[in-house]
């Protein structure tokens, strides 16, 4: 009984008690399989309970390829597909996941994407869930993006991506792509694309509008609210996933969106760089030995020894409130250890675990004591952006020459990661 070889075929299975007919499908559980009955429902069986299996007819492998529409009147964009919910579709006939990686499949699921633009190119550097990505993937995306941005036929690019770590990628691209000339749009989906309610549809429509707009920025585009009516174009280095499941999961932190986009129009909200004819270059050197650690009550500062021993060059500590960690009055003070590791060459930066607001170590004596150890306080920069930026700065040998130079680069507003006028 070759159960696994018959997935997709219409079969008859015999258990001790009964005979069932249906399409054989793999089960998410091992040792089991599913049978899709004529009424469309799937029921489960243990492989060991099956006495007999008979193939009644082979499943059809229908594949009709076609070219999506193309119009001379529309502007051309390119799409980079990297994986995630927005590009994954369960195959209910054979089980497993189908990736949406070709123009015709993209068109079948997102016909509205093609309403306002021609999708001239689709590039698929890799297919990954965003939680499986790291800096090497950011470098890969940056490489492809730079090539496409320098293609005079392409007006802008859309990058589809999983949501979990999307804001790390958006921060990385903000630093990695130098002299940006065209829109770089990152977008996502929180609801799977096989459902009529998928948020991907509006996100992609708004992304296509942004991709041919004059906003030459790395931006993340997604639902602004729970409603399917408009999206925000959010600055890549100032955005964070703030909800595990809502479609408006991404929020701008300590800043404002570049623009509000609906299916028909785009309205500017804050200042952005204008589209230009320059050449872009990839500047994606990255030091892998950086870490991001959240400080919590009673935490032992010896954790820093671990990073030092493992050869880490820099660490972002997510501090409490205005920028605090346990000090001399705590049972386990961090002051001495912080001094010690920095003397040994570890770069220590501080970001805010409150997410919103700016650090200010001068308000309380605890903050002043911590500041005196030499920590670089990163103002209102997001922790995730800070982690990416620290790796990027330390990856540049010409900057990593001294702590002063590193501090100077960390505090330089390279990609809109700082906002010195918080209004909320």
């Amino acid at each position, binding site marked *: 009984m070759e159960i696994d070889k018959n997935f997709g075929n219409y079969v008859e299975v015999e258990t001790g008690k009964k005979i069932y007919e249906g399409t054989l499908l793999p*089960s998410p559980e091992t040792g089991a399989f599913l049978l899709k009955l004529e009424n469309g429902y799937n029921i489960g069986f243990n492989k060991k309970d099956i006495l007999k299996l008979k193939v009644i007819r082979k499943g059809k492998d229908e594949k009709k390829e076609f070219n999506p529409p193309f119009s001379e009147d529309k502007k051309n964009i390119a799409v980079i597909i990297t994986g995630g919910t927005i590009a994954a579709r369960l195959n209910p006939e054979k089980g497993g996941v189908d990736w949406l990686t070709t123009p015709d499949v993209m068109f079948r699921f997102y016909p509205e994407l093609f309403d306002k633009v021609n999708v001239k190119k689709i590039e698929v550097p890799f297919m990954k869930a965003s939680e499986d990505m790291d800096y090497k993937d950011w470098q890969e995306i940056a490489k492809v993006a730079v090539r496409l941005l320098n293609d005079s036929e392409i007006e802008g690019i859309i990058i589809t991506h999983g949501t979990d770590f999307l804001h790390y990628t958006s921060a990385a691209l903000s630093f990695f792509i130098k002299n940006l000339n065209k829109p770089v749009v990152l977008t996502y989906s929180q609801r799977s694309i096989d459902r009529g309610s*998928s948020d991907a549809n509006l996100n992609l429509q708004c992304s296509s509008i942004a991709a041919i707009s004059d906003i030459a920025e790395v931006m993340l585009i997604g639902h602004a609210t729970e409603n399917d009516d408009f999206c925000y174009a959010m600055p890549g280095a100032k955005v964070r996933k703030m909800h595990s499941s809502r479609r408006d999961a991404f929020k701008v932190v300590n800043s404002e969106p570049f623009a509000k986009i609906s299916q028909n129009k785009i309205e500017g909200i804050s200042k952005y760089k204008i589209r230009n004819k320059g050449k872009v270059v990839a500047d994606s050197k990255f030091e892998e030995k950086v870490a991001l650690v959240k400080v919590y009550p009673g935490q032992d500062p010896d954790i820093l020894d671990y990073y030092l021993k493992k050869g880490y060059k820099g660490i972002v500590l997510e501090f409490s409130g205005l920028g605090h960690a346990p000090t001399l009055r705590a049972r386990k003070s961090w002051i001495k250890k912080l001094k010690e590791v920095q003397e040994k060459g570890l770069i220590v930066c501080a970001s805010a675990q409150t997410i919103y607001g700016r650090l200010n170590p001068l308000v309380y004596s605890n903050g002043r004591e911590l500041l005196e150890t030499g920590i670089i306080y990163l103002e209102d920069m997001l922790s995730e952006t800070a982690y990416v930026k620290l790796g990027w700065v330390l990856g540049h040998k010409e900057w990593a020459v001294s702590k002063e130079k590193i501090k100077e680069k960390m505090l330089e507003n390279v990609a809109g990661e700082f906002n010195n006028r918080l209004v909320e």
Partner: protein
Amino acid sequence: MAFDYKKLGFKAGLEIHQQLDTHKLFCECPSVLRTDEPLSVVKRKIHVVAGEGGKVDVAAKFQGEMEKEFFYQTYDTTCLVELDEEPPHEINSEAVKIALEIALLLNCEIFPATEIMRKTIVNGSNTSGFQRTVLIAHGGYIETSEGKVGINSIYLEEDSARPVEKGESSVVYRLDRLGIPLLEISTDPDLKSPSQVKEAALKIGEILRSTKVRRGIGTIRQDVNISIKGGRRVEIKGFQDPKIMEKCIEIEVLRQKSFVDKGEKNASEVRNCLPDGTTVFLRPMPGSSRMYPETDLPILKVSRDLISQVKKNLPKLKSELEEELKNQGLSEEMISLLFKEGKLQEYKELYEISGNPKLISKLLLLLPKEIAKKEGKKIEEIEETLSSDVLIFVLESVYKEKIQEKDVKHVLEKIVTGIPPQEAIKLEKEDFSDIEEKIMNILKEKPGLSPNAYMGLVMNESKGKISGEDAMKIIRKFLK
């Protein structure tokens, strides 16, 4: 319109949808329908997506072409799950248990492993664009006077949001109903006449009501699938009342017959029953290609242990209960009152304490009414005071011989006037000892009289606080 249904090749099957009386199927929200102002309104669009193998389901396409905007009203009794902003929680185990009870009562075989499916629905009545549904059991039957009717399948699914306002290009839905557990029972196309359809519907209804299902308008919906020889299957929805069913089926048979007579075939479609029994086109018949797995949830496993646990506690049907009550010695009048007033559960509780059906039915059904009448109060008010705890206490007092059966009415009357139950029964005893003392005094004051003469004096003195029988007992006790 008396047809020879056999000759016509009449075939009908029933589809019954019944809401279960639990919290929602895939979240912890209560199943409460709201009539007040919503907390907020969320705007959404649904777009048609290719189903399995890239096919767009006919029904899905038909609805999707309408390009509507949907508005969803939220309440403090709805959450992110109904809004399609959070994945479903694990399936409600109480609802599964009730579904299993019903499956067993309908003699069905239960699937030990079954996948929760998404049925594409694009009319906006589900925020997700699909309805979650799971096949629970199959292959059952019920008996009717016109023969056995097969139960094809039993499904557990989530109810849809209810439309509150329909416009040209938009629909407003209320999220309160979305996610209420709904059990769907579909029979085989075994029904051979409109009267059998009605009988089967009533029979299944009785079985459903023996379990924990929601009651009242809109909590049960019946659809009928009808075809005649040479025609195509038509599904008729929207009868709330089984009474209209027979008439509607007759009219539909006539409609289908008019096609067949002309050598044509009626379209296979879903039609809606109007109050006068006629029907109107609703939408094309959905295909099976609109079903795909709910990947956010594990496969539903129904263990043998669970089935045998449910089997042990299966509820009894009304007809079985009536038989049981009759055997306990209750009159038919009392039995029908018990069902009519919905006091069966209370009766059972009280019966466990004393096993005195006559006294219990009197306590539950007759005395509150008598007292209400006497006191000029509303029956609801009386029943609120005479709660089941109070009745249990009074019954226990009889059982422990603190009071006698005949005192019950008097005790209840006292309780209704505001005397706490503990006091109400105590007072009865004190009254008695008080009378004993009086009787002793009478005997001392007027020695040598006959018992009957004392009796006269005592009754005069006690002013009805003691029965003649009791008075005589005390007199005889003292005379010895």
